[in-house]
């Protein structure tokens, strides 16, 4: 029987699920994705170990990383996975919580639909709720960073790494992250202050222990000098950044030179080696004593550098080179030719740094450019027991860097540890009662859904979640009462202390998160939930059957 004859119900070859079935399926899929990552939430969350088919191991606590490595197949679940990736790109942290909130919103929406409330009503309710929540968050809960100072940044970094492997050394790493972020601060042409996370270079070298990771005010390159005869330390470096092959010149493909005199042939060969020699001479004459190139340097050319006591490094990654050029004030040259057709190398092309040194890290070497002139740069050299640990450390630090960046840019923070979620939940519940429409139900459910974060935090810590969350809600309810005294208003910062299993003032305890990250994750989670909620029909197309396979298919 040929497959085509079977699909009479649908003109296209495929499968169709609709109505309550598909909604149920989607919610189930979203829940199962959230279930995977939910144990990694919070300071007492644990890690996941992922092994791929070649046997490579990844140990991670980062929601986005875990979901990326799990091959999720269900389309609705994929939406959540993408949500986590998006959060990772946009904010850098909070990838786990965004997935958990989205799944919870879906679950509750599904219950409402079962009670014969139309999905569009729920969607309107959710939209309204998230709008109110964000407004309340930025107006009442957020605190200005300027009031809190550097300690606040360190605390923000600490909070983001609390759930990660570097948790126990958070003092050390948080300072490192804040230093690094402040080192790369720059102001762009339009006068905006930027904190490019990518400008913080992270190198990994196994060995020693996590605490011996270094923060270097400079750029660390994972390369070695081209020849062992070169000096390994150069003070007052004048750096030439090239994108040129320093090898014997070779004619481009298709270029022919025809000579009559056989002796000329030799002259051509002689010239081949001279061309590069002259180029190097020009570069050295301009005063360069450190030459970095993204291409190769052949043995012949090395000698010129060795003789002049210059340091040459070949095969530098292009991205690294661009940043070095920016930091040292050098011009990255892809050719020496100038407009007149002559080959020149101006001293103006050079970049400056206090020192360039090759240093031994573990069993390897790396080149460290310190005291770059144009812009300060930052590098982190991570040390740790093995590569898996280093990879996870890198991911964790990246998250922290992003969070610090967001805090510096947005300038407001909110208390962490479930405080914001509990406060918003109480606020929305009050808000819901003021509405006399059907949206009231949706908003109330939204309020309840937010409580999943403090609940999950408590569950991960093996505490009594019902009791803790109830306490937390009580505090926030008091804080939000109209005409509450100042002492009572201060209760709005109450959050969970998961080690002791109590509630405490999380602003005082230094558990802080950037407000922007919270707002973005709330919005993103709602949007994702809404987009899944809108689905009432799924048509899954058959993979196109190839002509050649048809005879086999007929056998079934």
């Amino acid at each position, binding site marked *: 029987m040929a497959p085509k004859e079977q699909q009479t119900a649908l003109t296209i070859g495929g499968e169709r699920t609709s109505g309550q079935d598909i909604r149920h399926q989607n919610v189930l899929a979203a829940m199962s994705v959230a279930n995977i990552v939910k144990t990694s939430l919070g300071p007492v969350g644990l890690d996941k170990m992922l092994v791929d088919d070649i046997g490579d191991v990844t140990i991670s606590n980062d929601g986005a990383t875990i979901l990326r490595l799990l091959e999720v197949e269900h389309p609705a679940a994929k939406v959540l996975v993408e949500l986590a990736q998006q959060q990772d790109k946009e904010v850098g942290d909070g990838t786990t919580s965004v997935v958990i909130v989205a799944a919870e919103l879906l679950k509750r929406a599904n219950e409402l639909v079962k009670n014969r409330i139309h999905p569009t009503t729920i969607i309107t309710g959710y939209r309204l709720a998230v709008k109110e929540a964000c407004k309340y968050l930025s107006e009442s809960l957020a605190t200005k960073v300027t009031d809190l100072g550097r300690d606040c940044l360190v605390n923000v970094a600490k909070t983001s790494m609390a759930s990660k492997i570097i948790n126990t050394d958070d003092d050390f790493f948080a300072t490192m992250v804040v230093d690094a972020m402040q080192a790369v601060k720059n102001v762009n042409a339009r006068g905006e202050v930027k904190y490019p996370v990518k400008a913080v270079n992270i190198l990994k070298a196994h060995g*020693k222990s996590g605490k011996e990771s270094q923060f270097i005010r400079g750029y660390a390159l994972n390369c070695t000098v081209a020849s062992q005869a070169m000096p390994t330390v150069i003070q007052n470096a004048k750096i030439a950044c090239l994108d040129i092959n320093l090898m014997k010149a070779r004619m481009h493909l298709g270029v022919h030179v025809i000579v009559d005199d056989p002796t000329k042939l030799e002259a051509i060969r002689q010239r081949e080696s001279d061309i590069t020699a002259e180029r190097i001479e020009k570069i050295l004459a301009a005063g360069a004593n450190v030459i970095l190139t993204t291409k190769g340097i052949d043995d012949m050319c090395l000698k010129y550098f060795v003789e002049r006591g210059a340091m040459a490094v070949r095969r530098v990654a292009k991205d690294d080179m661009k940043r070095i050029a920016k930091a040292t004030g050098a011009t990255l040259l892809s050719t020496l030719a100038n407009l007149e057709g002559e080959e020149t190398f101006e001293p103006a092309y050079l970049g400056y740094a206090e020192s360039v040194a090759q240093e031994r890290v573990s069993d390897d070497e790396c080149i460290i450019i310190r005291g770059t002139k144009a812009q300060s740069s930052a590098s982190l050299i991570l040390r740790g027991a093995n590569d898996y640990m280093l990879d996870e450390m890198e991911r964790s630090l990246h998250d922290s860097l992003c969070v610090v960046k967001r805090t510096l840019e947005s300038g407001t923070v909110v208390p962490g540890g479930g405080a914001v979620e509990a406060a918003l939940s109480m606020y929305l519940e009050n808000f819901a009662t003021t509405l006399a429409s059907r949206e009231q139900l949706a908003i109330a459910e939204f309020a309840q859904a937010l409580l999943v974060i403090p609940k999950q935090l408590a569950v991960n810590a093996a505490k009594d979640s019902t009791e803790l969350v109830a306490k937390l809600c009580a505090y926030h309810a008091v804080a939000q009462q109209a005409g509450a005294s100042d002492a009572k208003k201060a209760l709005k910062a109450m959050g969970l202390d998961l080690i002791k299993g109590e509630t405490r003032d999380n602003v005082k305890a230094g558990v802080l998160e950037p407000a922007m990250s919270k707002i973005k994750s709330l919005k993103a989670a709602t949007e994702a939930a809404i987009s899944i909620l809108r689905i009432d029909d799924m048509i899954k197309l058959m993979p196109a059957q190839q002509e050649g396979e048809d005879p086999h298919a007929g056998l079934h």
Partner: protein
Amino acid sequence: MMQQPIIVMNTNQQRESGRKAQMSNIVAGKTVADIIRTCLGPQAMLKMLLDPMGGIVLTNDGNAILRECEVAHPAAKSMIELARTQDEEVGDGTTSVIILAGELLSMAAPFLERNIHPIVIISAYKKALEDALATIDRIAKPVDVTNRAEMLALIKSTLGTKFISRWSDLMCGMALDAVRTVAQDLGGNKVEVDIKRYARIEKVPGGEIETSCVLDGVMINKDVTHPKMRRNITNPRIVLLDCPLEYKKGESQTNIEISKEADWNRILEIEEEQIKLLCDRIAAVKPDLVFTEKGVSDLAQHYLLKNNITTIRRVRKTDNNRIARATGATIVNRVEDLKESDVGTRCGEFKVEKIGDEYFTFLVGCKDPKACTILLRGPSKDVLNEIDRNLQDAMAVARNVYFAPRLCPGGGATEMAVAVALTENAKSIEGVAAWPYRAVADALEVIPRTLVQNCGGNAIKTLTTLRAKHAAGTPGASSFGIDGITGNVVDMQKYGIWEPAAVKVQTLKTALESACLLLRVDDIVSGLSKKETRAPQQQQAPPEDMGQEM
């Protein structure tokens, strides 16, 4: 339709989570540790490993053994990585780091069963690590790197556990000499000791182990290119090249079309002239010896021979670098650039000797060589390989002492001292964290215990005696350890077993951090398939679905 299963995840994955995942990690860690448990201490046994290619590895070096083991469990893989880290960072203590990490993991198992949160265990472990490092710092004593006797004793304790312990005096001397040779003071309290590049171990099967030595220069496995060239030169002038002494072809592609007969001859003549020119330029600096990394044509050999220059071709780049450092020559690429300053003159004697069936070139008697070759002789290749590994460890130890001249008592004394200190501290810790903290102390005792077990002693009796000695707290008590040969408690101060503090510190750090890493895991997902492997399954799926619909 309601009951239709929803496939969210790829179906061909295995997932272990919660307690099961934690326990399987712990078991995996312990299994890896058990493999190499018998390789610790002076009474250690070797392991014989057959690699997939059929080669044999005969060793008791933890890293070398684990490198050959193929393990499937992710946690076990992570453990094996530890040995590599340890080997690359300090070069010694690979066995102890694995044993310790395995023990720390298995110590955590009862706590997990008692429902103590892994985070609590980890923070207690980290706290213990800090205190342990402080204790090591307290009992470590400084060492004078220039004192040969002290350094020898130190290296001896590393080699004591190894295959070559029978020749330990000779080997220790060699390791120390090699490290001293390549050590270079960079000024500003910086010392560069690049063993990897400048101390080469050449293994020549045959002869006796006793004839192994460190050369005050370099040896390479090459012969002169022309039999008539001189094979013995005192105080040679050496030129190092990395270009071929042949007619050079250009980089650009060349096609030759010849229309006149005279041109053909001219081309051939040019080739000869070129070579002559090359050789004349070399001869201009009057060298006795020319090394090149590339080939030497017959014609060039002829010209060079006429000038009484000995040539050696196809030298490895690394060898050439070593020769450059030992003799003071600069490697030259274009003979046109050859200058008087590029010629190396620090070599005392050049000779070619036949050892066994092969010719070897020696450049010895160098003045202040900064590179050296260690010539190893021995009965068979496998034995030589093991000696090589041992010597690498010994050199790494010597190097570490150069960097951080501090010593700890060996023979399990340091571990015991730390264990006792931690047990003492544990009493003042509040809350559940005290148990895991104390567990670290118990785990550390695995080192002295294994030492006793490996030499067939009574572990419980000896260990309690040792613990009592340390706990007494009399001055010098911290140096009591296990004599790995008899299994008795001895004073390391008198017995003379010391180990570099750097190795001990690194062992503790690596073991504890990796244990923490594995304890944090509560979910293992394995067998994730990549997109390529997924495609066929999707194609298989439709027929099955159709079957259901029918």
